[in-house]
């Protein structure tokens, strides 16, 4: 008996180590892929070792052992099989809702653990573990319900946002009522509540999760998913304490704090607080854009664009995700240094949600050695585009789309954008004629003062450097 327990404990210890080590390896692009494999090994070891519980089972459960093992094996096979199959075939574009769905399942599992604990009639419940059980159950059930709504919204199964008068008050009432039932279970019933009351508690938490998520628009869902990811982590950590399982405690709390930090970072990128995202009923759901764009796209050679910039007096550069994909930040700064050496004033304009994540562009430019005083935020630089001779857009799209200012039917209408279209000449460096993240056609690309330089951003930069250098070389 003790040796089986030792095997279980050792494998949980190994799992906790492998999770942290795996996440650590995921923090660098070079080792990221091996990181998830390392964490996966930890999960496999812990799950298989858990079957050893059958040797140290509660005597009362002995009679049900065969059924319970069969149920566990069936649930594992079905759950793993379905998730594996769905995860393999889901399109990359549908990834956010899939992560939301899997996350909700984790929250549901944590809530289920709590429910079984609360239903265990013959257990002697102590107050502290009981409080932790209830909190974990509350968070887990909210995460389950909220993630399901987030999934349904992102997947287009629920359209629009559902709002009503006095919603905050109503939500608050549901939450307080649920909490009251929870406190009643802990302090009045000492954990021995009838199933109906326990069920009422879970139903209340679930309904609150739904109510809390319904008013939030599709555009804000990434923040919400990240928040529920942190919620599930916390719920798992709390239930781990209840079960005296350090692997769950560590894994849950690591995810809980990491997820909280990620949520704050993402909300910050949108210049809003998490509370604002959750409670302000802001955000839009994707709608079809109306109307055709007139005009045509005009191409330009990289060399011509470079020479034009060399003789400009002010150039503003607006980078986007394409810069990161092409890893062109070093070549870009090399080119910028040539311009500044020639007396051109160059500034970088960074949109808060440029790239795929907060601070993406700042990190890239800093890595290339661009000094901070050349990099400007949206509010600080937007007034200067009017005075710029040239604005260069590198792999950005939605963040420079004038439709956000003018076209009310556009899904991105109302989002602050960089006013690159106000510069005398605009060069857009892009790989092809695709649309942006939001799927919206960009009228900037069709404007009279816009020329497109097609190609990989790094190759374009090399060509631009050569063009300017050959100019200087010819002069000497």
């Amino acid at each position, binding site marked *: 008996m*003790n040796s089986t*327990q030792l095997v279980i*404990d050792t494998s*949980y210890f190994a799992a906790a180590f492998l999770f942290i080590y795996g996440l650590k390896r995921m*923090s660098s*692009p070079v080792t*990221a*892929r091996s990181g998830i494999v390392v964490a996966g090994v930890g*999960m496999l070891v*812990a*799950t298989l070792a*858990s079957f050893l519980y059958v040797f140290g089972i*509660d005597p009362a*459960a002995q009679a049900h052992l065969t059924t*319970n*093992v069969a*149920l*566990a094996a069936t*649930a*594992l096979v*079905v*759950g*793993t099989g379905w*998730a*594996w199959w769905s*995860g*393999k075939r*889901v399109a*990359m574009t549908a*990834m956010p809702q*899939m992560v939301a769905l*899997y996350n909700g399942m*984790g929250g549901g*599992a944590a809530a*289920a*653990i709590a429910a*079984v604990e609360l*239903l*265990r009639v013959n257990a002697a419940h102590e107050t502290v573990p009981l409080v932790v059980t209830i909190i974990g159950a509350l968070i887990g059930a909210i995460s389950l319900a909220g993630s399901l709504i987030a999934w349904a919204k992102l997947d287009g199964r629920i359209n629009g946002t559902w709002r009503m008068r006095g919603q905050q008050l109503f939500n608050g009432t549901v939450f307080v009522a649920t909490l009251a039932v929870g406190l009643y279970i802990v302090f009045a019933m000492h954990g021995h509540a009838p*199933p109906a009351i326990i069920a009422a508690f879970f139903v209340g938490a679930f309904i609150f999760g739904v109510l809390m998520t319904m008013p939030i628009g599709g555009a804000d869902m990434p923040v919400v998913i990240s928040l529920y990811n942190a919620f*599930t982590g916390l719920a*798992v950590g709390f239930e781990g*304490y209840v079960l*005296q*399982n*350090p692997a*769950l405690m*560590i894994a849950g709390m*690591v*995810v809980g*704090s990491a997820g909280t*930090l*990620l949520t704050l*970072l993402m909300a910050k990128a949108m210049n809003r607080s998490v509370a604002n995202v959750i409670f302000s009923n802001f955000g839009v759901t994707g709608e079809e854009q109306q109307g055709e764009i007139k005009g045509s796209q005009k191409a330009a050679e990289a060399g011509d664009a470079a020479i034009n910039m060399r003789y400009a007096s002010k150039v503003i550069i607006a980078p986007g995700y394409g810069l990161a994909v092409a*890893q062109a930040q070093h070549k870009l700064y090399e080119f910028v240094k040539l311009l500044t050496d020639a007396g051109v004033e160059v500034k970088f304009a960074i949109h808060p949600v440029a790239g795929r*994540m907060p*601070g993406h562009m700042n*990190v890239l430019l800093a890595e290339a050695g661009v000094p901070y005083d050349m990099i400007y935020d949206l509010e600080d630089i937007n007034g200067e585009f009017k005075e710029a001779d040239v604005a260069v857009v590198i792999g950005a799209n939605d963040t420079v789309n004038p439709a956000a200012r003018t076209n009310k039917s556009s899904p991105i209408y109302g989002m602050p954008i960089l006013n690159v279209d106000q510069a005398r000449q605009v060069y857009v460096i892009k790989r092809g004629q695709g649309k942006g993240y939001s799927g919206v056609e960009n009228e900037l690309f069709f404007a009279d003062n816009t020329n497109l330089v*097609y*190609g990989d951003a790094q190759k374009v930069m090399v060509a631009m450097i050569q063009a300017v250098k050959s100019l200087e070389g010819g002069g000497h």
Partner: protein
Amino acid sequence: MDLTTTITGFVALYIFMLAAFTGYEIIGRVPAILHTPLMSGSNFVHGIVVVGAMYALLNATSTAEQVIGFLGVLLGSGNAAGGYVVTERMLEMFKPSDKNKNDKKA
């Protein structure tokens, strides 16, 4: 539960505190480009909840506990397996695509 590890009050707080700092440090140092796969990766890690659900199910004594325990294991294993698959797919795309895209013209 016949456990050799007994975690009470302050020991639990120490574990939670250290784990929270670990999570904070891991994410805080990550380049922003990896934030999305990392969120998905941490989503996978809390799939360990399946282990707790298995414990609950294997010790179930009533039909209600069995049904809820079964659901717990089902959901937990879905969390773990799904989280793993999508994270691996994302990271797979990330690394080689950076190199390939540098060599390819659009």
